[in-house]
């Protein structure tokens, strides 16, 4: 009897403990006086050395550790002073003088000054520099190669005095200042570069609003308030944590349960749920991206423009947007997003017309269609959150005009490598703009300079000399009206040649707690948390 009683007691305790833990308030997650913001995101950073990465997840973090000479305004790509208080250029646009902010210290206590700026420029541009360890891919993209290369824009950086730097150019560059505002051209502590060398990416030291504290790979990056930040009174948060939760819906669940404060990469369908939730708010990031399907124009049958045009007519973009973006995107007709100056709104997109598409296929010598591979990315990206689904839908669309595609994918890194190497016939990809300049889309993604592997930005391997001339001309002009005309013309050429099917410009949603204040999503995709606080 005793034993039986004991057993029953045991059962009772067990049941109670289960129900207790079950019902125990999952709401009391945040303590009082919360001043830590946890940002849930889809992937880990590759490296925290912004000069050496191209991925958004890395830059998202470094944007808060480092400062650039010039910065963007909150919420748009207009330029404002940052580490440089002021600047001017010579008449010919070849010499730029920057007056640096005084009394700025790196997180390691060393002083920010003209020498530090020059040190960083030399590290980026000079392949023979002892600290040029890595690829510095963005530097190459934005400034036409490296020291000694034919198209290299920057001649040299010279420290005039403690707080003045001159940058001499080989030829004028239209988007020069916009380029300097990009996160990869952030100024790192020379002492830290000397100390850490190749491993700077694991020990970032900048002047930014937050100080690097800890990086647990695949889990989180922890940043702490920079108490000596030059912008007085900021930042407000004590701690900023970037938490990797790869699965979009899992991340949304943690958002709903209040375990994280803010998240990006929201599944469009979850936006509806977030809007209904009184504890949450939704932001839309202004669009500065494009998701596209690139044809490998070097491979048959996509070397034939008629084939490319035919397929362009077989995609119902609006239907894709309704289904996979919850309507939170615009159909794309140009590679440029419409928010950028230079966008050519006169272009009329290829209409969705299966009959015409078939006719074009027949004219091109494929009346019965053909079979090819269709690559889709394995991970959600802001411009294409659901690559696999879009691929399946387009597969079904193409089927209707007799084109059979086999869906192919790879892990994300090999995917980028292989498409950058031209191993695909057609592939989904996209781009989020960096500096708000049309050059950053058209030249990077469609100029023949970038159409060579490995690591081609132009994965259509589209080479058009006329376009190249226009783009280079625009790149070297300082006149915005002239540049606008050149880019409008460029878009006409691209439209006619159809190296891509531009699919969408998405306005990626972010979801966060209702009490978050001062958060303004930046179109570039990397946000500063300097002015963010909890109400």
């Amino acid at each position: 009897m005793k034993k039986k009683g004991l057993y029953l007691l045991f059962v009772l305790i067990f049941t109670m403990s289960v129900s207790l833990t079950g019902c125990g308030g999952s709401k009391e997650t945040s303590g009082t006086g919360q001043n830590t913001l946890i940002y849930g995101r889809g992937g880990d950073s590759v490296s925290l050395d912004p000069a050496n990465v191209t991925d958004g997840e890395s830059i998202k973090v470094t944007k808060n550790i480092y400062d650039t000479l010039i910065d963007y305004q909150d919420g748009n790509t207009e330029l404002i002073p940052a580490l440089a208080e002021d600047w001017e250029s010579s008449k010919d646009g070849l010499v730029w003088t920057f007056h640096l902010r005084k009394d700025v210290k790196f997180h390691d206590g060393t002083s920010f000054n003209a020498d530090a700026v020059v040190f960083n420029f030399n590290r980026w541009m000079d392949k023979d520099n002892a600290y040029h360890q890595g690829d510095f891919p963005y530097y190459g993209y934005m400034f036409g190669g490296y020291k000694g290369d034919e198209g290299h824009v920057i001649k040299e950086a010279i420290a005039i005095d403690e707080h003045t730097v001159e940058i001499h150019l080989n030829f004028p560059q239209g988007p020069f200042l916009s380029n300097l505002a990009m996160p990869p051209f952030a100024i790192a502590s020379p002492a830290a570069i000397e100390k850490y060398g190749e491993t700077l990416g694991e020990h970032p030291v900048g002047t930014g609003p937050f100080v690097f504290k800890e990086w647990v790979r695949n889990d989180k990056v922890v940043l702490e308030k920079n108490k000596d930040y030059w912008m007085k009174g900021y930042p407000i948060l004590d701690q900023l944590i970037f938490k990797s939760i790869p699965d979009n819906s899992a991340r949304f669940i943690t958002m709903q349960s209040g375990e994280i404060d803010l998240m990006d990469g929201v599944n469009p369908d979850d936006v509806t749920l977030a809007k209904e939730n009184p504890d949450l708010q939704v932001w839309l990031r202004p669009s500065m991206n494009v998701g596209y399907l690139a044809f490998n124009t070097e491979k048959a049958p996509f070397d034939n423009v008629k084939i490319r045009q035919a397929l362009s007519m077989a995609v119902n973009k609006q239907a894709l947007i309704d289904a996979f973006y919850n309507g939170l995107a615009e159909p794309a007709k140009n590679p440029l997003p419409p928010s950028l100056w230079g966008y050519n709104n006169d272009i009329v997109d290829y209409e969705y017309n299966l009959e015409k598409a078939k006719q074009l296929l027949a004219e091109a010598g494929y009346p019965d269609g053909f079979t090819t591979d269709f690559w889709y990315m394995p991970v959600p990206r802001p411009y294409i959150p659901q690559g696999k689904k879009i691929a399946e839908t387009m597969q079904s669309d193409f089927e209707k005009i007799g084109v059979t595609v086999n869906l192919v994918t790879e892990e994300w890194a090999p995917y980028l490598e292989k498409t950058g190497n031209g191993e695909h016939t057609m592939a989904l990809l996209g781009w989020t703009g960096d500096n708000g300049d049309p050059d950053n889309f058209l030249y990077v993604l469609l100029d023949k300079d970038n159409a060579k592997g490995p690591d081609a930005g132009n994965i259509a391997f589209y080479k058009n000399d006329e376009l190249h001339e226009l783009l280079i001309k625009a790149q070297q002009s300082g006149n915005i009206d002239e540049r606008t005309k050149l880019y409008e013309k460029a878009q006409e050429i691209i439209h006619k040649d159809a190296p891509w099917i531009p699919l969408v410009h998405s306005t990626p949603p972010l979801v966060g707690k209702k009490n978050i204040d001062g958060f303004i999503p930046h179109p570039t995709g990397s946000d500063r948390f300097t002015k963010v606080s909890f109400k």
Partner: protein
Amino acid sequence: MLAYTIRRLLMLIPVLIGMSLLVFSIIHLIPGDPAKTILGEKASPEVLENMREELGLNDPLLIQYKNYMLGLVQGDLGTSIRTKVPIAKEMKPYLAGTMELTFFAMAFALFIGVNAGILAAWKQNSWFDYMAMLIALIGVSMPVFWLGLMEQWVFAQNLHWLPSIGRSSIINPVHPISHFYIIDTILVGDFGGLLEVLKHLILPSIALGTIPMAIIARMTRSSMLEVMRSDYIRTAKAKGVKEFFLVYKHALKNAFIPILTVVGLQTGLLLGGAVLTETIFAWPGIGKYLYDAISIRDYPVIQSGILIIAFIFVMINLIVDLLYSAIDPRIRYR
């Protein structure tokens, strides 16, 4: 007993060597060049060559294998390509995570399985028996990953009772000492944290423990039935021993061996099931660690990780066999 133990241990040696050979060949069959993985496709041929030399990839396979084994014997599991951290160090928290989860899953499986099995046998052909066995039948056929999704849907997303992913609260993470979070929170007296850790354990433990629970329940029931029909239980009954006590003490003791076998077998299988459970519940365990390593081609991690899991697997089986023969010496001659 000692002789048997030694014999079993000796028999392990060829298996272990074979395992390492198999893993080694798997790694070298997976397409892709580790040096390229480290440097990216942008690397110049000279740098690539240096790196291959540095990693010893230019040596003949046999030499590479020998070097790997020499390292293993000295406890050197290699270094992760991605994080450049020694694997032995990096793997510890993941291993602890899996062990904690496996332990709880097994505890759940045993507690429910054994009790349900006993009760079902005790009340044979009652509605409880039928229900228990029906649930057990369904449990055996359950796809773990689906069960996990359903649990998340019901208990985390709809009822908001339990957290759906991770090992502990994201806001107040557990400060790792032993990496067994239960122990760590108790050590520092953080009982709020302990509760949090327990809450995180419930759903994945149930998902992972369901199949063994069902198997154990069926096994317990059938061996209990056999034992209860035996003469000495009948005698005991005749002597007037209280029924409940009887069932528990006498019968359970005799049903212990088959249950033990299943427990041993299932604990090993749980390590495999952990890959799926850990993926769904974003549980930082060895299964997810390995799965991630495979998807980014972190060869040393794949190699050593699989080997460690297989090693644990083999050891569990060995221990179970030894226990088995310690309890019932006849088994040995099987």
